[in-house]
């Protein structure tokens, strides 16, 4: 949502001439700015500083002699680089699939659900009433060797031995992440569609546009900002995802986020973990910038 809102507002703000409402703008943005500075920027700076430490010995906040040792270690291991590439690819796939699957849901909610849209929207959000962990664990029950899918296939005689390939691999990670992200991806698309004037569809129909043409020439272009927002909203956090691969990934489903998490919780090596986080931050930033170059959200908004 945030990304979507930003995409919408930034050019508008930039053009607005100074006016008395400017003051209230600053007042209103003050709490979020302070919160972000305290809880995001400061910890991030601390982490950046940590990545230049040689090790974790001595006082954490005391001055230290900075070193690039951790970055050298991070860059020296080709395993880390390959894994970063793999994680980006997984994120790309997950973002593409969930956005694709979310689009019809958003379309239905915006244009076809009518008065019941609110109820359907609540139903869409019902999964969030239970913990994320629980939903991922549920997929273990689905995909496990004695899980739901295997039981059904065995019971109907389609297979004779349970499929081991369902759980503990990258496929399981992708399936679970797509499931988790679909409701999130729906929201920005829905928001974008909500702004489409329904009379445009009537106008298109009056001009003998088929439903397919309406979708392609009217709805899709106008909802593209939401689609782009949804895509990046899924893509960015998924690059650094670690809980899902931890639970359903197995040894072969490890992602870059797991490596970072390991350095913090299993290795007591915060400096190297911080350096790897910084590398991931830089890489994600670069990818997003390339992505924005390609799709040019400002042009999409058409202002």
């Amino acid at each position, binding site marked *: 949502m945030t990304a979507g809102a930003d995409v919408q507002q930034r050019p508008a703000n930039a053009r607005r001439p100074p006016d008395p409402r400017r003051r209230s703008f600053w007042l209103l943005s003050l709490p979020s700015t302070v919160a972000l500075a305290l809880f995001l*920027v400061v910890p991030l700076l601390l982490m950046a500083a940590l990545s230049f430490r040689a*090790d974790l010995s001595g006082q954490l906040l005391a001055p230290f002699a900075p070193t690039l040792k951790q970055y050298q270690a991070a860059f020296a291991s080709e*395993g880390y680089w390959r894994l970063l590439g793999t994680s980006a690819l997984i994120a790309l796939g997950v973002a593409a699939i969930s956005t694709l699957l979310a689009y019809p849901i958003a379309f239905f909610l915006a244009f076809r659900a009518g008065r019941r849209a609110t109820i359907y929207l609540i139903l869409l959000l019902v999964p969030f009433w239970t913990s994320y962990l629980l939903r991922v664990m549920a997929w273990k029950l689905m995909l496990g060797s004695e899980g739901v899918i295997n039981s059904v296939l065995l019971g109907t005689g389609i297979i004779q031995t349970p499929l081991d390939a369902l759980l503990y691999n990258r496929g399981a990670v992708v399936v679970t992440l797509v499931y988790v992200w679909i409701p999130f991806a729906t929201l920005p698309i829905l928001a974008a569609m909500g702004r489409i004037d329904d009379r445009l569809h009537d106008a298109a129909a009056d001009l003998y546009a088929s439903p397919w043409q309406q979708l392609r020439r009217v709805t899709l272009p106008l909802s593209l900002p939401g689609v782009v927002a949804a895509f990046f909203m899924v893509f960015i956090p998924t690059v650094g995802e670690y809980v899902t691969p931890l639970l359903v990934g197995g040894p072969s489903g490890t992602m870059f986020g797991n490596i970072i998490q390991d350095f913090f919780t299993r290795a007591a090596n915060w400096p190297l973990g911080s350096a790897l986080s910084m590398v991931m931050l830089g890489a994600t930033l670069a990818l997003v910038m390339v992505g924005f170059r390609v799709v040019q959200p400002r042009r999409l908004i058409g202002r």
Partner: protein
Amino acid sequence: MRPTESRLLRGSAGLAAILLVAAACTGGASTGPTSGSEATPPPSEAAATPPPTDTPPDQVTGSLNVLDWSGYDQEIFWQDFKNKYKNVTVTFDFGNSDAEQYTKMKAGSQADIFHPYTGWLQFYVDEGLVAEIDTSKLKNWDKVPDSFKKIGQINGKQYFVPWDWGFTSILYRTDKVSSVDSWSALFDTKYKGHISMWDDGPAAVTVSSYIHGWDETAITDAQLAQVKTEWTDQAKLDKTYWGGEPDLVQSMASGDVWLAYAWQGAYATLLGQGVPVAYANPKEGRNSWVGVYGIRANDPNYDLALRFLDEKLGTLTGNNLVTNYYYGSSNGEVMAGITDPTLKTAFSIDDPSILQKTNFTPNLTAAQRDAWTAMWTEVKASQ
């Protein structure tokens, strides 16, 4: 966390700030990290705490915060203290790996008491995070065998109170695997897809050392490189790495995993569930570890913390540990009193030769810790 992350990424401010910090680092500070290697000051008779020993337990008030592994917060695992010190509030924080416990204490956790395991003790002393134990105030101290007391000693001083212990060996399903006589079974391609290793770098180094007969306290770079290659290949045989004991128990009970690196708690739990399992006696010897409790350096609550640890060694608490988690107690009387045949099997009480051949986990140096854990993450990254 997720939406904010995207916000940050879109601003170039984050990047600029990072550069700023980098500049600040290079500009400032030529002084190296202050080494905390100087021994911790002896336990202070802090004025804030109740006078030592004399106050009857039920008149002692105050509160204690314990950093422990989840599960050990249950009252049964500090029953003696609970029963005697009715007016003391005990709260728990959790750290579910040695690294997590260590980094929490390192980051300035105000926990009075924490619970590390052998392998991870030296750094607490080196970094000045742990207070020396005044054993003269521990009434139950005599019940602890000397071999256990020694494990809590670093640089010749008693910094830790030993509490729980157990074996590590290979646990296997007897209906799927005929027999196991060596740690190298973890590398046996026969069991491809049905093996589970603990997700831990030092553990991998230990297993490789046993197999090759290396001295695990003096692993060379070449040996570490070999360990990395071996475990990178081994990963293809694994069903999954296990993180916590319940995961392991579940995957062995369901039949997904036939053979695993395992603590004896998993063995005893599966025995109790009627799953056909056996716990190997590898020719290289089993491994054994000991859990200890330490008191935070300069803790104003030192005396109360000491009372807590004294009661931790109590018989009721020890019995609860043995019967509920199937781990050994450092209280010798508790172990001598075991009669349950399942427990006797789990602890190999009837076969003393097993214990004689057992390899106890040595303490890591900070350099070993960093090198071995990094080796393991690279193993995991290159799947």
